[in-house]
């Protein structure tokens, strides 16, 4: 018997690759849940904090907690794929608007919160996590956009959007700043940030049913109200006052403000750390609406813990979200490492006392509306964003929005 080892080596490599292919989905991100070790997927920013905050839980229940890093934008897709392949984590961190998609893929487990636990949380937050009468995740933090202003340039918070533009334009004319307002529009549009102004001008994405809940059956993108709203906003666009421009995007919006080139900034909680580190004296207030308009309600987004369906540790995972994520201590521990507005009422009170910015962010979100969480929502982002960017760039609002409406309607089957 003879054997030539070089091809054997190659064959070996081939087979090991085959083996990987057959093994299916043994990713680098860990092997999913194993009994006795609670696996949590989190974005790298928060994984350390979650690991620490979960120590107490791990000790009390005699288990290991293993927090694994997955980029936040990938968590939803990876969980759904991993769930299908049978190697999903026990728990994962996510956003409330993923709920619809997670549910239709059967990837998460419904949760029953005892009433005392539910009462400790903000009602809007809990409702945002519910779909078809099921609670699908336990929220712990809220996000909303707000107005950040440079107090050296603009000492007073503007009451209306017109006032904001007036103040900013004066500063620009005096040569003190280059921009009136730093609000990310981007070439593809940013419906998340635009929502406050669009709502204030009377536009809306979906209608509401009798109980004030979002109604997925009633798409409002191409409605006369929304078209008029975007026409109003277009007056501040590139062919109008030039306050809103596509050249400002999420890459440069913060830099404009922190370099003192813009007195106003439509910001989010993710900008707070940089703001505290910068030299700019800033204050936070609600995004102002139009003078004769509705309140400018920003979208409220919630960060939540979800329990994966069919995990090996589902009993512990449930226990974790029911009794631990709702616990003041846990939320405060998490807040220490990663400051976001808590939805746990007691934790919010404690935090607001120490950090006026968090209180101001929460206040700026008071007029806000929770983003719809049904799957149809996801289909609106891109068409609506592109239409909004075109309108800001000077295109006809009616044509752009009616096209976007048609496109969304086709995708969601209306």
């Amino acid at each position: 018997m003879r054997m030539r080892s070089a091809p054997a080596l190659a064959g070996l490599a081939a087979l090991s690759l085959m083996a990987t292919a057959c093994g299916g989905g043994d990713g680098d991100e860990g092997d999913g849940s194993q009994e006795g070790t609670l696996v949590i997927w989190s974005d790298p920013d928060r994984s350390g904090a979650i690991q620490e905050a979960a120590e107490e839980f791990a000790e009390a229940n005699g288990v290991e907690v293993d927090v694994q890093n997955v980029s936040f934008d990938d968590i939803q897709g990876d969980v759904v794929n991993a769930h299908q392949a049978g190697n999903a984590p026990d728990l994962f961190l996510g956003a409330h608007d993923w709920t619809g998609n997670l549910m239709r893929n059967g990837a998460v487990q419904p949760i029953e919160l005892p009433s005392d636990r539910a009462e400790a949380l903000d009602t809007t937050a809990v409702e945002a996590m519910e779909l078809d009468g099921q609670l699908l995740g336990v929220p712990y933090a809220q996000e909303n956009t707000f107005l950040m202003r440079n107090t050296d340039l603009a000492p007073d918070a503007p009451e209306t959007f017109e006032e904001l533009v007036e103040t900013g334009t004066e500063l620009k004319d005096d040569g003190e700043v280059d921009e009136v307002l730093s609000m990310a529009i981007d070439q593809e549009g940013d419906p998340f940030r635009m929502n406050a102004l669009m709502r204030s001008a009377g536009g809306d994405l979906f209608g509401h049913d009798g109980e004030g809940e979002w109604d997925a059956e009633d798409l409002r993108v191409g409605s006369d109200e929304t078209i008029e709203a975007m026409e109003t906003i277009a007056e501040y666009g590139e062919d109008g006052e030039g306050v809103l421009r596509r050249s400002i995007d999420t890459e440069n919006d913060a830099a404009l403000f922190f370099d003192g080139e813009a007195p106003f900034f439509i910001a989010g909680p993710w900008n707070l750390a940089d703001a505290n580190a910068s030299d700019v004296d800033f204050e936070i207030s609600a995004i102002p609406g139009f003078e004769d308009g509705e309140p400018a309600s920003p979208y409220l987004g919630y960060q939540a813990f979800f329990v994966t369906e069919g995990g090996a540790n589902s009993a512990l995972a449930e226990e974790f979200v029911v009794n631990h994520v709702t616990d003041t201590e846990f939320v405060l521990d998490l807040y220490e490492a990663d400051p976001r507005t808590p939805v746990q009422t007691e934790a919010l009170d404690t935090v607001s006392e120490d950090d006026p910015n968090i209180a101001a962010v929460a206040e700026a979100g008071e007029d806000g509306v929770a983003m719809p969480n049904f799957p149809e929502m996801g289909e609106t982002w891109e068409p609506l964003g592109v239409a909004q960017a075109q309108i800001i760039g000077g295109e006809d609002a009616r044509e752009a929005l009616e096209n976007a409406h048609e496109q969304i309607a086709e995708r969601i089957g209306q």
Partner: protein
Amino acid sequence: MGPNDSGPAGSPSAGAPARPPLPGGRFAARGSLTGTLAKIALLGLFTALGVWAVLPLYVAGNWWGIALAVAVVALVYWVYLSGRSVPAKYLVPGVLLLMAFQIFPVLYTMSTSLTNMSDGHRGTKEQAIASIEAYSVVSADSAEEYTLTVATTGDPETGELVFLLTDADGRAYAGDSEGLEGLTGASVDDAGKVTDAFGYTVLSPNEVNARSDELQEFAVPTGDGAGIRSSGLNSAFEGSALRVYDAGCDCIEDSETGTVYTADDERGAFYSEDGERLAQGWQVGVGFDNFLRFLVNPTFASAFFGTLVWNIAFAASVTFLVFVVGLAVALTLHTPRLRGKTAYRILVVLPYAMSSLAMYLLWRDMFNADFGLFNRMLGTDVDWLGDAWAARGAVVLANVWLGYPYMFLVATGALQAIPRELSQAARLDGAGPWQAFRHVTLPLLMVAMAPILIATFAFNFNNFNAVWLLTRGGPFPAEGTMSGGATDLLITYTYRLAFSEATAQYGYAAAMSVMIFLIVSVMSVVSLSRSKALQEVDR
């Protein structure tokens, strides 16, 4: 096994003394002790890999996968041990790699393109039914909440599960799969949790967790289809499943609204009479529907051909320009008298050494209409990313900058392989520098460069990052993204259609990928056969 030990009949070593040394060099240890040991070790390792591959397949109950893995291991054993299949020893690795990385994915894509696989249609019908039932368990508003202690009547691992419950008034109950009854003489702690009860073994959190699967199914029946289920380790609630599957009618009835949802195995979901569907569906075959869906759509048809034309123009112009620029720089630096050649070459290759992802994002910033480097430096007011032709120019420009160093490297190598005497001879024969280049250097260069140019074309034809990171396919016409952006390639257009933010439509995307695959295949075959003709003419 000694050196004189002749192999079985047909073995290449038998009676072939004048045979030239076999490829494989020192690895071709023919029958030496080292060789045998290496063989045993490698095959052993290989078998271990096989076992490693089979274990998860066994756990998943994937018998076809196991059969495949075993067959591949057996094949490799036969090929490398029998000695009767010399050509196969060289072919097997390549063929296996080809199967694993080329043929299998293509076949998989093709088979997926015939299904409705998408969000809401990923798994099997059984999985869909299980989630529908699980998502329909609701607790009545006034339903009792209990503090829970999980216990058993016997062994912690196998004994029958019992819920020791206390209600808001502090009354204790024991509930098993038979029903609920009062519990007396239990010790209850301050939080109202039963800590000990006669006749029951209280489980530790770990012991409860070990029985998670059972707990998912377990409910203490309380009549009318309702049951007490656990929620975590310390609380339980009474709830009932509103939607229940009935195999008799292959339908799901909602006991609250009375609506009946019947399974539609063609569409892979449960539909009510009004056409309303339940969100959780399953994967079914849909034949060529995915292909028809875009082939008969007029918006798509016009968008598809517009995109295809730009796609070819993009790939061709990038290929042509990187070739021209790369070659020009290579020729310049090929001049014998030039000083500091190495330094120049390093500088030229730099863009190639940097992460193209980061570079694309940087270029996107530089093209920003108001804050970008280009407009600021040139004092122009071009809407680089917002104007169709400016955006096309921007995409080509950025890609030429990123692509030419590679072409420069290849051209430099090829130039050095061409003897300088050839062009000197041409000069002596009276040819000018251009003629010498055109008729002597270039044809020789093309022999090496032609396959690279085809590869560059094919790469740029599907250069997803180039477009996605710079323009995302935009700017878009007023009709929206469906009709294709000015810089959209087929691949970015497909990606946006198939994976628009919410719904991943794998079946649809696979159908589009198959179309692109066909187009690229046809173009590759045509250009490869033409390049053969080119080489023969040159010879």
